[in-house]
């Protein structure tokens, strides 16, 4: 299982704050592409964290079971 957490405007689009997907291994980039297509996130910008740490280069990152991914868009309200 890999868990994905959604925040801010991203959670508005996905209409959920988290979900679990039954993969034991997947490239982070592939997972992100799936999510972006499924929820049409292309207009949103966000940073991606794995296990509470922002990943600067998603291209080479392999996820394994029990990893927790978070999509963190910038907020603007104040």
């Amino acid at each position, binding site marked *: 299982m890999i868990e994905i957490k959604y925040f801010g405007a991203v959670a508005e689009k996905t209409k959920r704050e988290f979900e679990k997907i039954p993969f034991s291994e997947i490239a982070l980039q592939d997972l992100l592409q799936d999510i972006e297509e499924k929820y049409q996130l292309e*207009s949103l910008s966000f940073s991606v964290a794995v296990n509470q740490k922002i990943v600067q280069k998603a291209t080479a990152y392999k996820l394994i079971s029990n990893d927790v991914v978070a999509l963190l868009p*910038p907020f603007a309200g104040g």
Partner: protein
Amino acid sequence: MMLLPYYLLLPEDKNSCMNTTDRYNRQMILPEIGEQGQDKLAQSKVLVIGAGGLGAAVLPYLAAAGVGEIGIIDHDVIEISNLHRQVIYKSDAVGAYKAEEAKLMLTALNPLVKVNSFTEKLAANNAIKLFENYDIIVDATDSIAIKYLINDACIVTNKPMVYGSIFRFQGQVSVFNYQNGPTYRCLYPNENTEAQTCTDAGVIGITVGIIGMLQANEVLKMILGIGEVLSGKILVYNILNNEQQKYDFDKNETPAITQETFEKQYLKTEKLIEEIRFDLVLDEIDSDEVLFLDVRNEDETPKIVLKNNIRIPLSDLENEINKLDKNKTIYVFCQSGVRSKTAAELLLKQQFKVKSIIGGALEMKKILETKVIT
């Protein structure tokens, strides 16, 4: 032992409000603060950018704690729709400058604190000079573009930036550029970002209150040298389920920002984007020479219907730019006038004649309603 409220125990001496030992006693008896810590607070200078929801929470806590000098910069005036969350303002202050009202409030709260108010807009041409006079910069603004400007000016002047921001019931807090630590650009490298503000997305006072107080807390920790500063970490808080998480991030290897690159990047576009009040374009409202471009999303209200208007959400603008006629003057608007400036910048780069409408659809609706009546 103390059964009477604190204020009843104060001596009746008229100068008692100037008595620092009594005023700060309850924080000075904390071993982490003491007389030394109180001196550090008194010698500190903090600039708060934005006296809206976040600022209204940050400011009184800094003043009450005895931060020696506080700067407030905000060009807005108080509106009735601000009062539910900007709790330092009274109803009869509607129409007054926020920076000036906040100064009055803080001075009454703690006359020992020197408060400087600036009713101008923070921009590239005043940021660096202003930041140089302070030790810590607090970002209590509601615009992504301004956050990049603050971040970059903090790098140029070598000041820490205390970031706070909210989206509906969630908030983010972090400290950037602290002792040469990671910056806003390390967390969010993609500058061409659009995010909804409070005006666009809605907000309750508690959310900005909590996040603003967490920002004030980071300020005090830095001044006092206690605890762990949120540097290289972003705290995300959800007030609906009380979950909070911290995410770590590293410093990016990006080109250094210097005074020279700063001026090059900002002073150019700042001069170019023209903003205009809607009441000044009313004469052109039925003209075929102009086009009113609404860059809000499809579901955003109030609907503004004019003779020549078109809606292209900002996120689609780049792809649908060919729907626009380069021979016409384009008046671009969004909900409150923030996103429209991003759109104007984009159109400007493509050689359109464009002006951004100040205050957006909310302001336009007000003006259109009065127009019908008169």
